[in-house]
């Protein structure tokens, strides 16, 4: 009964909230508008934007010790999560069945497990760091912690359901993923999409000035 609800209507609902919410957030940001820049450019804004969108993912050597840890943990978490979200066989099968109608190449099982390990390693380090460092303690609000906890729980329940032999475990994983989808557009998790805009805006401004940002 509840299983059917989680598998059916709640999934549709949460996916709708996610898609509509994300689009709505991006549109409201764009609607705020920017004043056109009248200064004579030295370099190209668009190539600056594209460059920064990618180059900001490159390791920043000048950040000190704490920065090193943050960056390495950040890589582990994001790369691991991305890989297991889009290339783990159970996920791809799920997308093929529920959303796209077609599947794509998946990673071998060992790579799936490895990326899960890396993602957990990164997330735990980042979250504990958030709880410990005076800087992040000062900055963090409920949203930051809620986002971390939800992602952690989704990952944890996913890992508990790895045997893929119990419907209950799959449903718990799915339920948490749905809660995450519903929470997503109203939270910091939006940085998944808005980082492209932020890097783009900054890259464009700096690109006009002829600076590789």
């Amino acid at each position, binding site marked *: 009964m509840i299983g059917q609800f989680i598998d059916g209507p709640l999934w549709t609902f949460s996916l709708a909230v996610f898609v509509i919410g994300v689009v709505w957030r991006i549109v409201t940001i764009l609607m705020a508008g*920017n004043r056109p820049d009248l200064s004579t450019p030295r370099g190209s804004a668009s190539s600056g934007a594209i460059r920064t969108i990618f180059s900001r993912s490159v390791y920043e050597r000048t950040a000190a010790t704490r920065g090193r840890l943050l960056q390495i943990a950040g890589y582990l978490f994001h790369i691991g999560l991305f890989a297991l979200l889009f290339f783990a066989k159970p996920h791809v099968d799920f997308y093929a069945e529920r959303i796209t109608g077609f599947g794509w190449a998946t990673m071998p099982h060992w790579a799936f497990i490895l990326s899960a390990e890396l993602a957990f390693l990164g997330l735990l380090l*980042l979250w504990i760091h958030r709880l410990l*460092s005076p800087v992040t303690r000062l900055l963090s609000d409920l949203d930051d912690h809620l986002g971390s906890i939800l992602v952690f729980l989704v990952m944890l329940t996913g890992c508990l359901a790895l045997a893929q032999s119990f419907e209950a475990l799959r449903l718990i994983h799915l339920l948490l993923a749905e809660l995450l989808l519903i929470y997503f557009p109203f939270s910091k998790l939006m*940085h998944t999409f808005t980082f492209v805009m932020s890097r783009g*805006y900054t890259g464009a401004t700096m690109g006009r000035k002829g600076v590789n940002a």
Partner: protein
Amino acid sequence: MIEQFEQGVEVLRQQIDARISSYFSSCVHCGLCAEACLFYTETHDPRYTPIYKLEPMRKLWRREHTFWGKLGAVFGLNEPLTEQDFADWETLVYDSCTLCGRCSMICPVGNDITYMIRRQREGFSVAGYAPEGMKEATKRALKIGSPMGVTFKTLKAALAHVERDTGLAIPIDKKGADYMTLFSSMEVVNFPEYIESIARIFQAAGISWTISSKAFEATNSGIQIGNREAAAELVNRIVVAAEELNVKYVVSPECGHAYTSIRWEGPNLIGRQYPFEVVHILELLEQLKRDGRLQLEGKSATPMTLHDPCQIVRRGGVVQQPRELLDGVAETFVEMKDHGVMNWCCGGGGGVSANDRAEPLRLRVFERKKRQLEETGVDTLVTACANCRIILEEGIEEYEMETEVISLTELVAEHLVDGSKNKE
């Protein structure tokens, strides 16, 4: 006061554009920007974390631009931006930020934090929460024409000295000249050698140039305090003067923020494009050198290092030119460990040098520059910003170091192939 505060909030509200909305949406509070800020690295006080300096603006953004904020506002759950916030954050926004832009280079989601602080200052200045020193400087700039109270009479006296020393005639208000040169008050008062160097270099390169009696001051206190109207007025004076003289180029002096204000912010402040081009003196010198119009001879044997002024290099895009010039005049040029667009600020930019209250903090964070200098093992520091120069000299004195600070333009002038130069 209440009315002024509300105006301040209104101005702050107007600042929130798509860029700032996306920046706040993207920030995950990772705290990496703290590692880029010399106020944090030298004090380890978490409150100097760059993004934390934006809490007042974030509060407003959250309340008016986010779902939870709007929902909370309906039920009176989240507190609105208060005047106390302005009071509490004033020092963070003005004393502990030099708008150096280092945090903007390091943010993983690409937020231009410096841009946001520059915007937030607009609201603060209107609400009346800005340091006295900067308010006074802005008033003087608007009334007298210079933040340091330098009038054209003072400049004329300095120019007379230069004319006597070099035997060159300095063209004033010459219509149709190619280049109109600006100065910063700091140069007129503290480093008249700069004016002399310019005169000799331009003479040697055969450049048609002039100085306007109506607008010779390049600095812009309005930019630093964050007051759009004041900043626009100061830029407009230069634009009007340049149009009257019908020049092709306006030359920004070594001063860093002057370049940002006239080159990058200016057209946006006055709302139109210029009929002339703005070049930084280093850009011009490098161009002249490349074109062969600037002949240099002999190289200084003393090893030298370069302090990149933030507003010229990181925020201005004049990165390679100072290096090309320095290579032409110095035998040994040692780069600092973090150089170019990742260089560390001297600690006095963004109006901090005009803010007496910030002096102890500014001298404390100078330790970063001190370490950087010591790492190079070089005792001669070349820079290209009059403000950096004075701040560096103060820091060097405070820490009893042996470093000599020299201006790149002056250094270039010393190596001119020209009969008129006076070699010491």
